């Protein structure tokens, strides 16, 4: 029985894993395939993508034609259940009333967490991204480098399946030959952006996303991933064979019932469960890591949300993969005589240096895309193309006025209509009747969006702490967020807006609104849902929370494998790096356990 309750769980396991998303899922898979008995605590309910995903459901079959509401923020069919910017009974607070200093916290309370609906964009950090301080004197270096993580990027890409191309660009690593799946063909708008962006110096090429453009090679990949472990290879091969290739329909944000994209619930958890070594305990909200008299973690205290009772589960090793905010919350709430300021917090750095991604977008209307003959552009359910950061040299030479780069995500608008008026009033010019339909068809697909996804430099004003007063429904103190962007981020967003305007102009199009004042268009902190940092990795125990193995300096059998240890947040989306580091940490744990070191 893989899904357990507080009553049916074993009294003790080898490992307690808190969280079931990218980090927790990868860790569970790595450890159970190595023979360790694990229990996974998930604060939300169990979730089965095979039966619960809305795949071909149309907007006219949903309430309000599927548009977003305060209860389903990203639309009715979005995979997220029991989650969003606000979660009932689980408040969070802000250190400031200033809108620019607020942090938006997206949480999913479901098995698989945010991996069920994420964008599937899977970019490797480059060598610069691990040593940003050495490069420009700002932020922090990681104690590990690209060469340490590279083998795990390759393993993860082979396991989850990532499409894309190798382009040989600066700080934008290629994958070894044969690892990436074929890139999907460019769509009309993407090809048009590619052609014209080139004229203003912006390169456009296939993006990397975790979608199976063809079935994974289950005959050869498992042996590469788990050499010498035939039992693991068979389990992984069986799991790979159950995943279908993309059939070029339905948006990935809904999740995928056939497993054609990566989500923890279709890729990581099935093989972990197949080992017989994993129990999953849903509706279990971790409150504290329990500390033994020997100074080692020996379990987790959690709230059973089905009863409201406090429960305990024991383990010889504890892993937190609960998201940056929730991991910080658990550590700060784990107070003891040895750790009066929170567990693993002898440095005082728990909660510090939270980062998100710099986000800003612009929509253009492109006459050349009007009245394009109708054709199916659903494609791989998300972007096919992007622009990796292209101005490393100019930036290093100090020519840009901001220190870190961004990539551009893009898309056309020939996607599934429904719910919203496709024809803005200014373009319709008052049309009704057949004239309206004519204009709607003319303009459909003629809008192009460009979005900046950029690096934020960690700063002293962006951090998470416990609210001294507010508690959740179960009496657990909640997180209070503090936020501030620096001039680097504001200028970067401004640069992106100028770039987008230039691209639309090169395409013969117009922007759908005037260029804003500098800095006013940056999305608030948290809005891009790339919450990282808060328990940084470092080389010095006095100034960081974990070492280069995601192992807390203070408690050697406690590991953090969400994005909380990231010392920087490059423009590359964090999920692939979370998985690579979780796998690497899992291998380290197995090795250290064998040697009797933990």
């Amino acid at each position: 029985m893989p899904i357990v309750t507080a009553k049916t769980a074993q009294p003790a396991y080898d490992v307690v894993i808190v969280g079931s998303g990218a980090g927790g899922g990868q860790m569970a898979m790595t450890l159970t395939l190595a023979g360790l008995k694990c229990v996974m605590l998930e604060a939300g309910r169990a979730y089965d993508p095979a039966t619960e995903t809305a795949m071909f459901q149309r907007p006219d079959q949903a309430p309000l034609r599927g548009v977003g509401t305060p209860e389903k923020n990203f639309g009715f069919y979005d995979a997220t259940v029991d989650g969003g910017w606000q979660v009932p009974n689980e408040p969070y607070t802000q250190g400031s009333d200033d809108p620019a200093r607020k942090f938006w916290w997206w949480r999913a309370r479901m098995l698989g967490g945010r991996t069920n609906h994420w964008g599937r964009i899977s970019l490797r950090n480059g060598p610069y991204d691990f040593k940003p301080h050495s490069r420009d004197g700002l932020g922090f270096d990681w104690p590990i480098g690209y060469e340490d993580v590279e083998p795990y990027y390759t393993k993860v890409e082979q396991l989850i399946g990532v499409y894309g191309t190798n382009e040989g660009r600066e700080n934008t690593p290629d994958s070894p030959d044969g690892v990436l799946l074929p890139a999907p063909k460019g769509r009309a708008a993407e090809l048009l952006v590619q052609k014209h962006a080139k004229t203003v110096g912006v390169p456009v090429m296939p993006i990397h996303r975790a979608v199976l453009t063809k079935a994974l090679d289950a005959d050869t990949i498992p042996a590469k991933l788990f050499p010498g472990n035939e039992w693991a290879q068979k389990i992984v091969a069986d799991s790979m064979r159950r995943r279908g290739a993309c059939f070029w329909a339905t948006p990935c944000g809904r999740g995928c019932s056939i497993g054609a994209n990566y989500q923890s619930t279709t890729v990581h958890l099935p093989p972990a469960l197949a080992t017989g070594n994993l129990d999953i305990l849903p509706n279990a909200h971790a409150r504290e890591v329990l500390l033994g008299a020997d100074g080692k973690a020996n379990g987790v205290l959690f709230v059973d949300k089905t009863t409201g009772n406090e429960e305990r589960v024991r383990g010889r090793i504890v892993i937190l993969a609960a998201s940056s905010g929730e991991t910080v919350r658990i550590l700060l709430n784990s107070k003891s005589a040895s750790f009066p300021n929170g567990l693993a917090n002898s440095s005082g750095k728990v909660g510090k240096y939270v980062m998100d991604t710099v986000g800003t977008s612009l929509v253009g209307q492109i006459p050349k895309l009007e009245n394009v003959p109708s054709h199916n552009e659903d494609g791989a359910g998300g972007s096919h193309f992007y622009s990796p950061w292209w101005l490393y040299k100019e930036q290093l030479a100090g020519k840009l006025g901001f220190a870190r780069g961004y990539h551009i995500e893009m898309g056309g608008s020939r996607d599934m209509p429904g719910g919203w008026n496709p024809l803005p009033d200014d373009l319709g010019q008052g049309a009704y009747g057949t004239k309206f339909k004519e204009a709607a068809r003319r303009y459909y697909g003629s809008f192009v969006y460009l979005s900046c996804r950029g690096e934020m430099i960690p700063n002293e004003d962006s951090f998470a702490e416990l609210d001294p007063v507010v508690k959740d429904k179960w009496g657990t103190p909640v997180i209070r967020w503090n936020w501030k962007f620096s001039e680097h981020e504001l200028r970067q967003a401004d640069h992106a807006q100028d770039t987008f305007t230039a691209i639309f102009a090169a395409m013969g199009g117009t922007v759908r609104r005037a260029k804003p004042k500098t800095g006013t268009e940056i999305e608030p902190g948290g809005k891009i849902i790339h919450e990282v940092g808060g328990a940084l990795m470092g080389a010095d125990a006095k100034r960081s929370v974990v070492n280069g193995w995601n192992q807390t300096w203070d408690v050697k059998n406690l590991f953090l494998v969400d994005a909380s240890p990231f010392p920087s947040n490059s423009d590359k989306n964090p999920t692939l790096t979370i998985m690579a580091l979780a796998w690497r940490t899992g291998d380290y744990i197995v090795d250290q356990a064998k040697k009797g070191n933990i």
Partner: protein
Amino acid sequence: MPTHELPAPFDPGLPERMPDPAIRLPRRTVLKWFAAAAAASQVAGCLDRSGPGGMAPITAPGYGTDPLLTRVYKAGDAWPLTLTEAERTASVALADFIMPADAYGPAASKLRVVDFIDEWVSAPYPGQMNDRKIIVPGLAWLESESRRRYGAAFTTLAAAQMDGICADICFEKNATEPFKAGARFFSVFRGLTAGAYYSTPAGWKAIGYEGNVPLPKFDGPPPAVLAMLEVEQTVK
């Protein structure tokens, strides 16, 4: 990705649909509406809801944070519908005037557009409740305007008469002062009608959307599209 009405706008990292800030509907105070509706009450009869209990607040709960996603919902399943028969009849007439049967597709009423509008203005969410304050008094105003001009109910007007009213309110930017509020109503109503119309298979055909079908492979745009755009397929 719907963005326009959300308290929490969209993440382009997850583009379920294209955002366009220009489509955003401004939320002005609609006090004018109530003045107009009150004036209309003398002639509009059954469309007047300015009396006691007329514009009852929406109190039904929403669908919650964990609704069943795989079932087929129809208007009224998630919360009770609240438009009166007279309001629904007027809505049918207006929606069919905005989206008539023609070479592009069927009339709005054939696609249950008014069920959607009723569901929308009956929904317990802030964005929809704002639209309710525009749509319900707007329908009353439309009726009063029809009676003022033609001495007849809007639903009984000839096409040329409907056109006479709609021409004055079809474009907010150009509407003259007496018709500003009517134009606001028309913009919201037309937006809802179009949002509903184009969410159906017939609407998809009308606008040129061909997706939501499984394919064995994805070939990208056809040669005619590439030629029209003067681009080449760069992914081989």
